[in-house]
């Protein structure tokens, strides 16, 4: 019987991990400015221009891209499993909209809301991820409440109310954008466009810790996620309490989405595409699917962001454009394939 065993776990994860490290190295070296690697490495700790670009500009951005790509993919996996819908993703559930709104309210009302680390010596940490997390959680709770009838979650209601909430929130954000002053509006737009940009290592570490925390929490629920894909009744028969699982998954993924949206805006399609490809390649067992999707999402966004940096160099494309360029056609293909499959069943 072909089932998940330790050999497959180790093989898939280490192969992807090696690929991720190679990608990270390659993407750090690629960019509009050519870097003399041997020069840079020789003077790694003295601040020559090459070393500066490598260590201060590119590396943190690549690390951030990996965390966000991985996080998006993991959120896609768990939301798809929970709703029993292979086409679910954070955008469709209104979660990303909620996170954006939370972040924007934070930016408007508490622009200087920074938490100094170690008395300011290590820099400051923005509260915006927290505001975005609260926004994400709020919209998820809202969508959940509107889709819960007599203790049962109705997947179609979730998707519908999520889409509606997302467009409603988009309108609210546009409204806010037109009443704030010009400079603030520009700042908001820049933030909303969603792109990776160079951040301080403190911020990168902070985002990584949010995402790792969420990921580990979700990974510990892998077996229950397997069971919930069979439907709530079947999951109950096999020992899962669906309500408790749903709440934990919603909180953990809101935490991740809030953190991601707060630094990069919503980068579309990673959370939809990566889980699908991984399911086709390695199967649907979440014990393997979750870490593998995290690694693959990291690899994907790492390269997408490098493309965004070099395609129109020295100008830079928002990475969302690159992911949408690949993701849009892929999504249509999926819809087409799902349609054909349900007809042949």
């Amino acid at each position: 019987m072909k089932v998940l065993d330790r050999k497959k776990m180790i093989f898939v994860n280490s192969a992807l991990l090696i690929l991720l490290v190679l990608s990270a190295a390659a993407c750090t070296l690629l960019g509009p400015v050519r870097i003399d690697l041997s020069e840079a490495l020789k003077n790694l700790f003295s601040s020559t221009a090459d070393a500066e670009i490598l260590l201060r500009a590119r590396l943190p951005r690549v690390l951030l891209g990996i965390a966000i790509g991985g996080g998006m993919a993991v959120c896609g996996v768990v939301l798809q499993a929970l709703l029993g819908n292979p086409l679910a993703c954070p955008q469709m559930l209104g979660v990303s909209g909620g996170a954006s709104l939370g972040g924007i309210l934070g930016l408007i009302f508490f622009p200087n809301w920074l938490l100094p680390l170690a008395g300011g010596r290590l820099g400051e940490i923005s509260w915006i991820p927290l505001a975005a997390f609260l926004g994400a959680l709020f919209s998820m709770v809202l969508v959940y409440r509107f889709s819960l009838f007599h203790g049962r979650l109705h997947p179609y209601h979730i998707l519908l109310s999520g889409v509606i909430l997302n467009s409603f929130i988009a309108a609210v954000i546009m409204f806010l954008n037109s009443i704030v002053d010009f400079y603030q509006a520009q700042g908001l737009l820049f933030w909303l466009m969603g792109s990776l940009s160079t951040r301080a290592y403190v911020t990168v570490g902070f985002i990584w810790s949010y995402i790792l925390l969420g990921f580990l929490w979700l990974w510990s629920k892998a077996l229950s996620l397997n069971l919930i894909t069979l439907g709530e009744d079947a999951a109950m028969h096999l020992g899962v309490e669906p309500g408790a699982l749903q709440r934990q998954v919603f909180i953990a993924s809101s935490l991740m989405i809030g953190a991601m949206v707060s630094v990069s805006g919503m980068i579309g399609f990673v959370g939809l595409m990566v889980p699908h490809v991984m399911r086709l390649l390695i199967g649907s067992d979440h014990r393997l699917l979750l870490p593998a999707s995290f690694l693959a999402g990291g690899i994907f966004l790492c390269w997408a962001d490098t493309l965004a940096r070099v395609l129109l160099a020295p100008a830079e494309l928002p990475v969302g454009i690159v992911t949408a360029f690949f993701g849009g056609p892929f999504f249509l293909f999926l819809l087409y394939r799902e349609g054909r499959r349900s007809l042949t069943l």
Partner: protein
Amino acid sequence: MNAIHAENLSFSYQDRPVLHGISLSVSCGEIVAILGPNGSGKTTLLKIFSGILRGEGELQLNNKNIEKYNRAELSRLFAVVQQEPRVNFPYSAAEIVLMGRASYHSPLALETRHDLEIARTSMDRTDSLDFANRYLHELSGGEKQRVMIARALAQEPEILLLDEPSAFLDLKHQIQVFELLLRLNRERGLTIVAALHDLNVAALFFPRLVLLCTGRIYRDGAPSDVLTEKTIQEVYGIRVRIEHDSATKKPQLFICPSLS
């Protein structure tokens, strides 16, 4: 000891009452068929037994109130074979069967050799080992159903609840499933409660039939007491002729169509 002991059990979906004052005991090692027309409450009754729905009234499992069990304990006590298996993601049949072992190992651990062995014997028993590596959504309705029964067996339950287990099966696999149920019941003392539509099959394989009508127990007893021309007329509203099969001495129904 009673595996299931229900007393005065009632249930309504919002304001639509489905079950009224059901009192029913199933002792350990018994094999019972629940019969009745569409909407008579068979599925609802099974859902209350397995803890999916909470009814009003008293329900004891192994002489312990159902409220005192948690979900994982219930999943080791009961296995349920549902009417329509729903799988939206690509899982192989073997993976589906192994999910029956979920409440036996820790949430992050992989299945042990013991789990694999149990999954293999369960699939062997239901004649589904041949397609263990195929995706469930590629299987035919009958093959799917056999995989689902294999999963239920892999749970190593004390009580097996089945809702229309033979709905998608051809004649051979229907008979195979019921013979398997009988064997499990005799050899391992598995308590079995199955909701069925096919009255003739029920009469052949089940020594005790419970006939539901609009949410109440209409008759409860041996096939020849429950399946009479009069009760069928009253419960189903159709005319039948009943003869006892000479070999098995079981009652069998012959439908007398009003147009012929």
